[in-house]
């Protein structure tokens, strides 16, 4: 839960994240990302003291906001979310950035990872919405804050 709200804050004001904090990884340049077209990135997280490789999907909006969610599709387990279509959806009067799974078309809120449209499918056991990571863009560099407590 804390992850989700942190992500939401980060998304609304990306620079609010302390970009110098430990756990930030430089991922790519902002210009490496095409607006409204996701890109996958491979990160190394530490889980229980062990390094683990994690695939994330980075999305740059037309307003140059960068958001990070899990690359794994919760419904099929395939690593494809970065290849989904980006858009927006009106949620409580607010235009919210979204990402649709390219396999079965579930629509997720990119800021919180919440599923907005399940398209009649259930996530796999242990999956739900999309996991999110806080992102900061500093001097044109996209940095992702890894949540070391994640399991």
């Amino acid at each position, binding site marked *: 839960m804390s992850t989700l709200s942190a992500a939401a804050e980060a998304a609304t004001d990306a620079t609010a994240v302390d970009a110098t904090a430990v756990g930030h990884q430089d*991922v*790519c340049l902002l210009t*490496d*990302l*095409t*607006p*409204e*077209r996701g*890109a*996958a*990135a*491979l*990160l190394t997280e530490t889980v229980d003291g062990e390094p683990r*490789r994690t*695939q994330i999907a*980075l999305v740059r*909006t*037309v307003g140059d906001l960068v958001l990070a969610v899990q690359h794994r*599709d919760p419904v*099929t*387990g*395939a*690593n*494809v979310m970065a*290849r*989904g*279509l*980006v*858009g*927006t*959806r*009106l949620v409580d009067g607010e*235009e919210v*950035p*979204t990402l*649709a799974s*390219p*396999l079965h*078309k579930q*629509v997720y809120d990119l800021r919180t990872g919440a599923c907005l449209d399940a398209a009649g499918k259930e996530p*796999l056991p242990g999956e739900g919405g999309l996991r999110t990571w806080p992102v900061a863009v500093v001097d044109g560099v996209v940095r992702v804050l890894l949540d070391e407590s994640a399991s």
Partner: protein
Amino acid sequence: MPQDTEPRHLVVIGGGMTAHRLVEALRARDTAGSWRISVYADEPRRPYDRVALTSYFSKRDPEELSLGDDALWHDELVTLHTGTPVTAIDTAARTVTDDLGRVTPYDELVLATGSSAAVPPIPGADLPGVFVYRTIDDVAALRGWVAEREQAGRGASYDRPVRGAVIGGGLLGLEAAGALRALGAQATVIQFGSHLMNAQIDLGGGEALKRLINGMEVGVRVGTATKAMVPSRRTGHVGRLDFTDGTRLDVDVVVLATGIRPRDELARAAGLTVGERGGVVVDDTCATAVPHVWAIGEVACIQGSCVGLVAPGYAMAEIVADRLLGGAATYPGADTATKLKLSGVDVASFGDAFARTERSMEIVWADPVAGVYKKLVMSDDARTLLGGVFVGDASAYASLRPMVGAELPGDPSAYLLPEGTGGAPDLELPESATVCSCNNVSAGEVRAAVTEHACTDIGAVKACTKAGTSCGSCLPLVKKLVGTELERLGISVSTALCEHFALSRAQLYDAVRLAGTRTFSEIVERFGRTGSRGCDICRPVVASILATTAPAHVLEGERASLQDTNDHVMANIQKDGSYSVVPRMAGGEVTPAGLIAIGEVARDYGLYTKITGGQRVDMFGARMEQLPEIWARLIEAGFESGHAYGKSLRTVKSCVGSTWCRFGVQDSVALAVLLELRYRGLRSPHKIKLGVSGCARECAEARGKDVGVIATDNGWNVYVGGNGGFTPRHAQLLAEDLDTDTLIRVIDRFLLYYVRTADRLQRTAPWMEDLEGGLETVRAVVLEDSLGIAADLDAEMDAHVANYVDEWKATLEDPEKLRKFAPFVNAPGESDPDLQYVPVRGQIRPATAEERRAGAVLVAPATLEVRS
């Protein structure tokens, strides 16, 4: 449900329309399985829609007339013996005997033998060239004859059309005359009575009808009796009609439509009571006087007469089904309302059309110039509707017919005025009013389909209630009822594309085309919700529209971000996130060298290989980052993108045709290649498939395609609106005997008209169904340019052809586009470690979650690195 007792045995004699309804109704309601049913059918096919018999001329496929769901005949409690007439009934022993001599016992017996065409006692009625009009075989024979006469006429020293005559000017005769015209023959209707359709409409209506029929270039002779049919001295075929007034008519073909006779011969032989004018006498429960024997449909003489319409027959079938299950249904009396099914001639009559009710009054409105005659029969206070006749404009028929016996609100004459002159109040049908008399569906049931069964469109309502699924004349009324009900529920029937665009796909297409807008940002600002950025529905639609209105590469600039992943990487995504690759093999043609090259690529990349239904090769299991290398090799070997990933032209399937096949009459492969290369890359609302067969044997299954072309001796026949898949459809004939250039223009326009006006993800068949006027409209637009857009469409297609480039080749030449294939933006050399495969029949398939967990043997194809 387990069966305690053996099911009882119901034998049905006759495999026609009412027999079908009986079996269907009984199987639907007999959930306990207490009846086992054997149906004996004289005709060699399963029950078909005789009412729609004339459409056989345009459909040409007997299968398409079949009634209901084929599954009924695979039900284990149902046995259908086609081509097996029953020859005797023994009501004492309770058995029937069929033509093979088999004796079968029954618990209950239903006679549903229908009628045969009456052959009048005129000399020469048995000559070659004289036909009746009752079964598929009759119609097929008639068609064959006309085609043969036409050939013979061509060979003669002068060219003359086939001359046809129809004896009998009733519903059936007029339908047959229309059919003769459609076959290219001349037609004259010979009517003994004082006017056409004298059983249904009055003299005034008959005169108006005659003018309309003449307008279709069909001759009409009323008050004329035929004395003899005289053979041609040269051929021995029918050659002339001699009338009692001494006049004559030269003919090549004659259709007899002088009435029908109930097929009660079996019943007579078995000692059942028959009516004065034939027909097995039954009471209001459809039971004969002999225990365990029933009769339904045209063979039943009920309330003193046989009725030659399907709706009363269906009612009888329902009654017997109900009674067999212990119900108490009785016959409500026949609704004899009729509507002529002849395109271009609107005629209908219902209720007391001849004003036979005492002290009834008639209100007539006639416009001889427009060829319109309308009459309402009202009670003497001009309030209660008793019946009516419509000729030339029967638009009010559907909504007035169910009102028989009810008070009409307002001034009755208002209902007769041409539409638009106003005055006629909207009729609020009573719940019990029958809307569809073929299937006995009331207004209440149609409304309930919307309010209780959550149907939100006409298709769902048809499926739910069966209303409008037989003759279809009630469809306008059903549509209106459904519309009103939806409105009442506050459900607006929205055609909006998605939450971002209130326009339908077709409207958006027009808007974009006319405004010349070229980017999504511009389009969503002008035509969509300001400030929004679209979604997975509208973005690909805009990409598809722009592909035709402003052709450019799929990955060009902002356009790249509008594409589905399939279009974005130009391959088909599979369940594990890998892709499949399909190079084009136009017309299904491939050289040995090409096949070897494909084999080598598949082998080197360890791809699973399968032949598609579209006559080409599909290679599965390619990782996104491998696609450019794979394509570099395929292009090297002479291949190009097959667009298997796009909502676009897929393939043009072909048979080998006249170059090799001894039956072929045209070069189907050459045409298929030509068509595939012409339409390759054309983006459309859904995938498009074409097929070309080299002769009528149809080995390419072209009629299962959106556009099917079949070679004839004189050129090509083109069929449209076919598809396989979830709801298979056969394509319908659009035009015949076209030369290749005309054929191409016809297909150009058909495809672009579809691209412009169809909904998203709507194949050509449902699109044509939704189109007002259906196939006729398509024909008018494509062949006669009724909308004046043909030049536009032609130019658009020419531009498409001129601008075509192979998307894959263009991609390989542009480093900017190639960047999109990097698996990870921060680790271009890595690949997805979760892609894992296991062996299957000498190839690979994705490992299941189970297999991954269990660490099952994973295969490492040649260049696929596998981590575990």
